[in-house]
């Protein structure tokens, strides 16, 4: 049996996780700012109404629809893409933690982290909650 790689000590992993979270948040914020600027230029003068709940249109509810809208430079979809990147940041962090546990050959935590990953992706991809 091979020894766990020393470069993947808990401390080293923590350092990389910290950096990963920072990059994710900054990237998400940058995309949101671009979309928000475009949105305010195009629709800033429109009346705002959030007193009644109508729910977002279906193309702003799914990752695929948001990516399509953002590719077409649709301003609300670009903001939404930034928000999806933000939601993806903790998911990427869990993914990285999973890789680290695999490299540490920590079998118990490989399973636990995989379970967290499945639960997270279930929410974002299917979005039906536990119903």
């Amino acid at each position, binding site marked *: 049996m091979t020894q766990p790689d020393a470069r993947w000590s*808990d401390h080293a*992993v*923590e*350092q990389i*996780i*910290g950096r990963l*979270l*920072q990059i*994710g*948040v900054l990237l998400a*914020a940058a995309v*949101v*700012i671009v*979309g*928000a600027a475009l*949105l*305010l230029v195009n*629709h*800033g*003068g*429109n*009346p*705002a109404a*959030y*007193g009644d*709940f109508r*729910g*977002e*249109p279906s193309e*702003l*509810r799914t990752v695929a629809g948001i990516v399509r809208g953002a590719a077409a430079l649709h301003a*609300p979809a670009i*903001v*939404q893409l930034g*928000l*999806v990147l*933000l*939601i*993806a*940041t*903790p*998911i990427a*962090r*869990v993914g990285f*933690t999973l890789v680290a546990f695999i490299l540490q050959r920590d079998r*118990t*935590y490989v399973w*636990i982290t995989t379970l*967290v990953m499945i*639960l*997270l992706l*279930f*929410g*974002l*991809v299917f*979005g*039906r*909650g*536990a*119903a």
Partner: protein
Amino acid sequence: MTILALATFVGIGSFAAGLLGSLTGLGGGIIVVPMLIYVFHVDFRYAVGASLVSIIATSSGAAAAYVREGYTNVRVGILLEVATTAGALVGGALTGIIDPSILKILFGLLMVFTIYRSLQPRAEHEILSTPDKWAARFRLDSTYPTPEGRQHYSVRNVPGGFVLMFFAGILSALLGIGSGIIKVLAMDQLMRLPFKVSTTTSNFMIGVTAAAGAGVLLHLGYIDPTLAFPVMLGVLAGALIGARVLTRANVKWLRQLFTLILVVSAARMLYDGITAVL
């Protein structure tokens, strides 16, 4: 009000909420939702969606700094995230079923509990050194930095903490909050982690919990880009600046201000919720 005007005022308000939440250590989510509802007359569901997204940003931003200081217990965090993400998925599914008036009552009660906890003196309990069966099974015991060097600590009552974390996850998705107050309660009081380890690990978990809930709320149409962007950018900027000035700020009167806002919001939430149900 135009979209531009609303975005400006919501941005300023969210900045203040993020700053206050960061300086007092009580988080921004619990005052962002009442602010959106009562100051800007936003529907409860849109407020919850925007708030939950902003929580991911502040949690991830702050966790980046804490993780590197060596307080966060990554194993405890990951293990309990099984409970919080499962809870968040259940909470997300429940948002469409439970009447918003009931959720307002729940929100009000949680604010009352937050006030109660924030008024209690923070006494560090003794650090345990004897391992517990579950803590040993999952290798949760660790060390944390103290002025006298890294000190070892043991973890206990893992099942109890796990159950409480499941409820913290439900509340997070239902109310658009990080539910850090319950996460810290589980780790500090039940599992007996050192206080600083509890708060930083809680922060570490809040982003993952909120991401699970936000995924569900996105599909339910609760996340409106026009409303969510000023909330997210405002809260994030406030929290980042709050973290910078933390050492210089007079936290005492800020905590009193935060408590006052909570008292007023809790009263309003409970009144609205109860009168609507009756």
